[in-house]
């Protein structure tokens, strides 16, 4: 029995627990499941994985074999961090009484965990889609406003899924039916399709809109849960399949830069955080593109850090939303008076994302940037330096939207006059734990070393070198100075309520407009076609009627004389035939 458990993908525990939750009416049991399942799953990962790659749980479906369990150093990181996020989210959502959220959250987490621990592309596809449908429930739990966003979310994720499937099938069939998920590369058959599929899920530029569309509309706990898994699963897939693919460097660099500009004008702070998420994903995509051991370590480490600090930021915004009912910067301000703990946690999160020394991103993001720097140094290619510059710019940009804007407009700035309760205890515990982790992961004496020991490659990298600390601080202080300066001179823009257009305009407005227009044209066309065809049918019918009806030409009671002539004519014809035949 125990042996059997060692061949079971730990993600299944989540899924079982999720199904159980769907049937359980007792809230407290569900909540316990929500917290305990990730712990148990993490324990099982620890039991299963012992420094050696584990491949197990092979199921055959028809001609196809599904490898449902494959743990190696790369996937292990994702597995643990997903479990960790599961615990945090479980605690964070403790106050909520919603069976659907609980069960779909568990299934969603399970899908993500399963997704990283499977060994073939088909299983990946299955959990890819399972993650999509379970997570869309969380979006829809956001209520009426999430109705259409959820459908768009689902459509986009289904698109991502079928593209993945299509790519996998092309890839697998060209490999003689081998669907093992290893390094794919963009030039493999089906490679581009799968890259696009993963790109959709991790928010490549122009494919990113579902994040900013759906996340801010999900329920409070929903957004927090969502932020941890979907995009990270996609990152895992990229890291597994496309490490060292050059184009990802540029895509990633672009991804770090463009959200900065949207975040600065966006009013909805959860959407700001969504852009920020996109921007952090950019660093990781870039790291995957570089693909050196250092970069890959940076990616894995940054995933861990990002799950925690981005979760923390979403949690703090969620707490604010729970208490105030809004997450719009224009409506908030001065909340540190009412929610001091939340303020502190949010600041820790902000500091982490901005990569202050002693906070988590400092030890992880720097690996990616260093890797970019080294590769630029090695190649001396101008494009690599441009990438590095973009990453640096984005680092300063992060400081703007997540490091300053989110905490500042929520907790400080102009007092909105809102006096609310502090967040519920469970949220505070979750945020506190996350904050601790943010600090722990960057703790110079044992913290980051522990984090590094989990990473897929053995690389000696020291984040706390003098120059690194100093120049990072230089950058951040300069950014803060700029903020204060611009604020002082009144150049810093006020927050205004607005809908900010992004690329999704093309399908939500332009595409929809075209569809409506075509539908309208179709209606007119079909009306016309049916009219023309009716006329045609009627005309033909009439013509036939004129010929064949009792009053028609063919049935007129022919005078016998005519019939006789006809008979004679017939004779002539017959004789002609005979004549031809005989001669």
């Amino acid at each position, binding site marked *: 029995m125990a042996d059997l458990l060692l061949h079971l993908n730990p993600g299944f525990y989540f899924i079982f627990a999720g199904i159980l939750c769907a049937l359980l009416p007792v809230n407290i049991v569900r909540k316990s499941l929500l917290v305990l399942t990730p712990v148990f799953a993490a324990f099982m990962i620890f039991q299963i994985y012992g420094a050696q790659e584990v491949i197990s749980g092979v199921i055959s479906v028809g001609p196809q074999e599904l490898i449902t369990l494959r743990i190696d150093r790369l996937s292990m990181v994702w597995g643990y961090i997903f479990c960790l996020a599961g615990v945090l989210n479980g605690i964070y959502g403790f106050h909520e009484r919603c069976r659907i959220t609980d069960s779909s959250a568990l299934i969603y987490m399970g899908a993500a965990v399963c997704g990283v621990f499977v060994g073939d592309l088909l299983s990946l596809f299955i959990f890819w889609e399972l993650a999509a449908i379970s997570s869309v429930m969380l979006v829809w739990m*956001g209520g*009426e*406003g999430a*109705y*259409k*966003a959820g459908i768009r979310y689902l459509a986009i994720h289904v698109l991502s899924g079928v593209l993945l499937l299509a790519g996998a099938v092309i890839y697998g069939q060209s490999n003689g039916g081998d669907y093992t998920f290893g390094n794919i590369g963009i030039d493999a058959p089906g490679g581009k399709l799968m890259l696009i599929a993963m790109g959709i899920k991790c928010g490549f530029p122009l494919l990113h809109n579902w994040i900013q569309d759906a996340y*801010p*509309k999900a329920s409070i706990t929903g957004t927090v849960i969502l932020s941890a898994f979907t995009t990270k699963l996609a990152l895992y897939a990229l890291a597994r399949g496309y490490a060292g693919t050059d184009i990802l460097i540029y895509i990633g660099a672009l991804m770090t830069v463009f959200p*900065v500009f949207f975040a*600065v*004008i966006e009013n*909805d702070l959860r959407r700001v955080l969504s852009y920020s998420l996109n921007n952090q994903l950019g660093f990781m995509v870039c790291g995957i593109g570089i693909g050196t051991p250092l970069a890959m370590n940076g990616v894995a480490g940054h995933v861990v850090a990002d799950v925690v600090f981005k979760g923390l930021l979403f949690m703090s915004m969620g707490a604010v939303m729970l208490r105030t009912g809004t*997450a*719009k910067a224009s*409506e908030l301000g001065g909340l*540190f*008076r*009412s*929610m*001091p703990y939340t303020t502190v946690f949010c600041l820790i999160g902000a500091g982490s994302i901005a990569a202050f020394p002693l906070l988590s991103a400092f030890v992880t993001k720097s690996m990616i940037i*260093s890797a970019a*720097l080294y590769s630029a140094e090695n190649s001396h290619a101008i494009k690599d*330096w441009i990438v590095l*510059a973009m990453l*640096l*710019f984005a680092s*300063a*940009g992060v*400081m*703007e939207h997540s490091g300053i804007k989110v905490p500042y407009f929520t907790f*400080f700035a102009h*007092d909105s006059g809102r*006096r609310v309760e*502090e967040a519920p205890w469970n949220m505070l515990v979750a945020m506190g734990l996350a904050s601790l982790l943010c600090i722990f992961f960057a703790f110079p004496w044992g913290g980051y070393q522990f984090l590094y020991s989990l990473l897929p490659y053995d690389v000696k990298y020291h984040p706390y*070198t*003098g*120059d690194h600390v*100093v*120049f*990072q*601080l*230089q*950058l951040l*202080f*300069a*950014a*803060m*100075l*700029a*903020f*204060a300066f*611009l604020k002082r001179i009144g150049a*810093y*823009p006020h927050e*205004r309520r*607005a*809908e*900010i*257009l992004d690329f999704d305009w093309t399908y939500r*407005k332009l595409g929809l407009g075209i569809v409506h227009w075509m539908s309208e044209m179709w209606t007119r066309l079909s009306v016309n076609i049916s009219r023309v065809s009716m006329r045609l049918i009627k005309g033909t019918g009439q013509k036939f009627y004129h010929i064949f009806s009792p009053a028609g030409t063919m049935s007129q009671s022919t005078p016998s004389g005519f019939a006789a002539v006809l008979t004679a004519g017939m004779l002539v014809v017959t004789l002609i035939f005979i004549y031809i035949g005989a001669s």
Partner: protein
Amino acid sequence: MAKQKSKMAKAKLSDEAREAKERVEAHPMAVPFLWLGRKSVQDNFIFLPLIGLIITIVLGLVFPPEHEAPWDFFASWAVIGFCAYSAVVFSAEPLFKLLARDENYYGEGSDNG
């Protein structure tokens, strides 16, 4: 009360009075930090990064960068940070003009208030 009313009529609350009021409403843990809301504090906040910046620039001489980018010079990271940040902020206005629409632009209702 009358005193308070007359002050309100002046339409400007002094920090002390405001904090006194806030002290009642605020979370107990926040009480010691209410000074953060003062205008003077917010106005003088600028010195914190300025001092930090100066210190780190000086320290930058002590710890020279191990790997230099082609654009690196003395205090270059500070310049990058400042410029990048300012660029982002200054881009906000034109971008807003370009991209901002009414909140119910897509006709799906505004999300969460």
